[in-house]
């Protein structure tokens, strides 16, 4: 209390949107914010996911699903949701490991962030190939 009251210290508050665009995050930081973005995305699209699930659970809906899923825009929405799930899943496992005090040092944490990006983007790519009928 004694010295902090006399000296004006710099305050670091939340940065604004314009600063945000120029802010260079480390890989683990990107992973973290994308974990949040992917979670929020799945939350917002929850009724869409459930409507699709309801459709797939009826005999006529199941038959119509293939035709419905052939629209490129529908495929794109599917792919975004697949990416969101895979990213949230892979990054989530990393967080469970970190929370159990595994790989907390700077080097391992950076490496595991890279591994998670590789795994989630790689799996998304495989699903994309399948979805767009390349494979």
């Amino acid at each position, binding site marked *: *209390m004694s010295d*902090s*009251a006399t000296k004006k210290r710099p*305050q670091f508050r939340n940065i604004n949107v314009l600063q945000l665009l120029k802010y260079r995050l480390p890989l683990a930081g990107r992973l973290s914010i994308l974990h*949040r973005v992917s*979670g*929020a995305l799945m*939350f917002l699209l*929850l*009724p869409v996911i*459930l409507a699709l*699930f*309801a459709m*797939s*659970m*009826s*005999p006529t809906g*199941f*038959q119509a699903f293939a035709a419905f899923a052939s629209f490129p825009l529908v495929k794109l929405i599917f792919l975004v949701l697949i990416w969101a799930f895979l990213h949230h*899943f892979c990054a*989530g*496992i990393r*967080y*469970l490991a970190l*929370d159990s005090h595994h790989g907390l040092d700077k080097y391992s944490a950076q490496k595991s962030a890279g591994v998670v990006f590789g795994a989630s983007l790689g799996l998304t790519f495989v699903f994309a190939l399948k979805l767009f009928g390349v494979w």
Partner: protein
Amino acid sequence: MATPEKIGAKRLVVGAHYGVGDFMIQRITAVILAVYTLILLVGVLMMPGFTYESWVGLFTFTVGGLPLGQLLGTLAFLALSYHVWIGIRDIWMDYVKPVGIRLTLQVLTILWLVGSFIYFAVIIWGA
């Protein structure tokens, strides 16, 4: 921020330690959801072919008359709802500072999730 606080061993710490509880629940529900994902994955891989019957069977299979598929699905969605509640509430607490707007968003989040849970239950138990 304006009033200097005592930080350290002598700091007065108050609270109902719901933070630790939510932290634990978010992680426990995450594990439940990861396990359920793997159960579904094994189920899909064990399908003889991707037919309507085998797809519905993933969520409606029974073991000795017990509707295990529906029970597991419902428990997983319950875990999902709680997991999402904590996550989305954290987002509102981080980015939305006015109390009235934050409370409104939190209430809407709960309604959204309870509605989704009911919708899911109707789909899975009605199939």
